[in-house]
């Protein structure tokens, strides 16, 4: 009996404390927290061929206890920028780090006023994150500037019913930096006629760089009975700042019949980001779940336009009120 009680006591003592790694609340501890969280959770090391241990040791040598918060922040931000991921940020009380090269090294390819003034004549409707109107070529035009906010079923019905007699639809998501996948999903369902495989998700199953789940297919259902479904030609206008949920929108729409992607390569950002807080109250955001398209291809580095529909905004033509990308999109749905 005594042995049994002793065994139970030790079993309880061993099991009662599941270990949680703790970090010191100083510069080195904060840096180690950033490095470790990325090491254990980030999902694109392999795709981007990043040696995270080497990267960490390179920046770790610049960190010492007693250094200023600003200098520590810069060291951490520099290390994070090597992930080349627009979803990775470090936020503190005085700054948020941001990797900008994914869009800053490319032409912007978008001028909102150009469309509003010369194509819509400032005669358009605005509804939440959307402006919409009918172009002179009898083509419906929707600009969805962010998927941070969505539209209700009734809102989308109103827009599509306005366009019901149009010959095609242009969805302009240039400069749409993403937002909620469910807001994009609500709109995508208006273009589906049946349950459709829209992609695969792969998540981390452990802290190792190779610990991933099998790609898990996910499907979207068509919109409900009282929702208008659009089955005429669609052109989606994209630029390098089409990112994250907007990139995901493109990755799904491009495989639907009658849909063409027009413009420039998207910005990517197919990792779903999560956030973790750090010893100083700083917050780290990073990609942990990779979304693949319906054919199993990664889209983290962006999606090319449909073959034959790649086009940039001609800055000279823009001076005379011409959006060469929009013109190409109009042609795509009317030709």
């Amino acid at each position, binding site marked *: 009996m005594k042995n049994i009680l002793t065994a139970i006591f030790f079993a309880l003592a061993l099991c*009662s404390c599941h270990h949680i790694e703790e970090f010191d609340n100083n510069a080195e501890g904060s840096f180690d927290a950033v490095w470790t969280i990325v090491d254990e*959770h980030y999902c694109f090391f392999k795709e981007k061929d990043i040696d995270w241990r080497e990267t960490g040791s390179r920046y770790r040598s610049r960190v010492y206890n007693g250094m200023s918060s600003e200098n520590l922040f810069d060291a951490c931000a520099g290390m994070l920028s090597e992930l080349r991921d627009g979803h990775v940020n470090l936020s503190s009380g005085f700054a948020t780090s941001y990797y900008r090269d994914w869009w800053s090294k490319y032409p912007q390819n978008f001028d909102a006023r150009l469309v509003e003034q010369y194509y819509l004549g400032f005669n358009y409707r605005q509804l939440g994150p959307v402006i919409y109107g009918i172009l002179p070529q009898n083509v419906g035009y929707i600009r969805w500037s962010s998927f941070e906010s969505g539209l209700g079923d009734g809102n989308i019905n109103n827009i599509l019913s306005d366009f019901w007699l149009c010959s095609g639809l242009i969805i302009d998501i240039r400069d749409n930096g993403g937002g909620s996948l469910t807001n994009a999903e609500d709109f995508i369902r208006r273009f589906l006629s049946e349950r459709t495989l829209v992609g695969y998700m792969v998540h981390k199953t452990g802290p190792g760089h190779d610990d991933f789940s099998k790609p898990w297919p*996910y499907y979207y259902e068509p919109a409900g009975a009282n929702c208008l479904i659009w089955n005429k030609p669609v052109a989606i206008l994209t630029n390098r700042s089409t990112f994250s949920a907007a990139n995901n929108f493109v990755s799904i729409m491009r495989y639907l019949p009658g849909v063409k992607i027009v413009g420039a390569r998207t910005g990517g950002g197919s990792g*779903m980001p999560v956030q973790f*807080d750090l010893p100083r109250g700083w917050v780290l955001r990073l990609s942990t779940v990779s979304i693949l398209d319906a054919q199993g291809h990664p889209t983290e580095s962006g999606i090319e336009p449909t073959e034959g529909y790649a086009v940039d905004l001609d800055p000279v033509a823009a001076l005379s009120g011409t959006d060469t990308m929009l013109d190409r999109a109009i042609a795509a749905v009317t030709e």
Partner: protein
Amino acid sequence: MAKKISRLINRASCIVHRALTNRALISALCIAHCALCIRAEEPLRPVSSTYTVEIGSAHLADTYLSPMHYTGIHAGLSYSRLQAMRFDPERWVMQLRLGASVDFTKNPAKTITLYNAGIDASWGMMRRWTLPAGFSAGIGPALDIDAGVLYIDRSGNNPASARAAVTVDASAFAQWRGSLLGIPLTARYSAMLPVAGVFFSPDYGELYYQIYLGYRSGLVHPAWWGSYFSLDNLASVDLHFGATSLRLAYHNYILSTKASNLVTRNVTHALSIGITTDWISLRPGSDAVKASRIISAY
């Protein structure tokens, strides 16, 4: 001769029949009498109901949400019900516990709040032993259901973490009834320790959005001391004032889980105050009702 023999047999069978009939009657009367005796002597089994409120400290950690440890305030309400069991009231008691709690905690830098809300229900039976000098003790199994959610007030795709478990627990108590400074009291320590069951946990990097879309595999994990350790300690003193008692207690709760390389921890310390009452429900027509003069206000 044959007629004589037949008459003798008939008489003998009548005697035997009468004897048997009398015995059956007596037996039936005895059984009925015993049944009445048992019914009349069936003990009353009052229900001890306790309502408490508690407040104290909370220590939370959930590596799905954050690597940091959060500390703050814990508050809770609970109801417990103890009653001797009908089948062997001297030795077996049942216990029902219902509880709800909330925690408001901050990270070490005090910049982010982590909220925890949970409910808990358990029902169990305990074999009890009456010991000398007012002491008693008991132990037994219980079925425990625990559910809750952690919410952290920052954006991202991991703002919340759900908690759910169904476990079979070992529950135990030790108790002393006596008096101190002339006040009758009951000092009691009770504990509940889940032994086996199942609990919910997402995969290491799995998002709740994936679960929403239909990814449901690997969410339920076996609970044992290596993966799900929980201990609920309650030390209480009931000061008896007539039919009502004042309960003063210290309540400590420990939960530590590990599944899919995710660790959660929830430790609370709380002081609680409550009221305990003993009550008896009377069934109309029962012996207890017949034997009493009852004036209802209803």
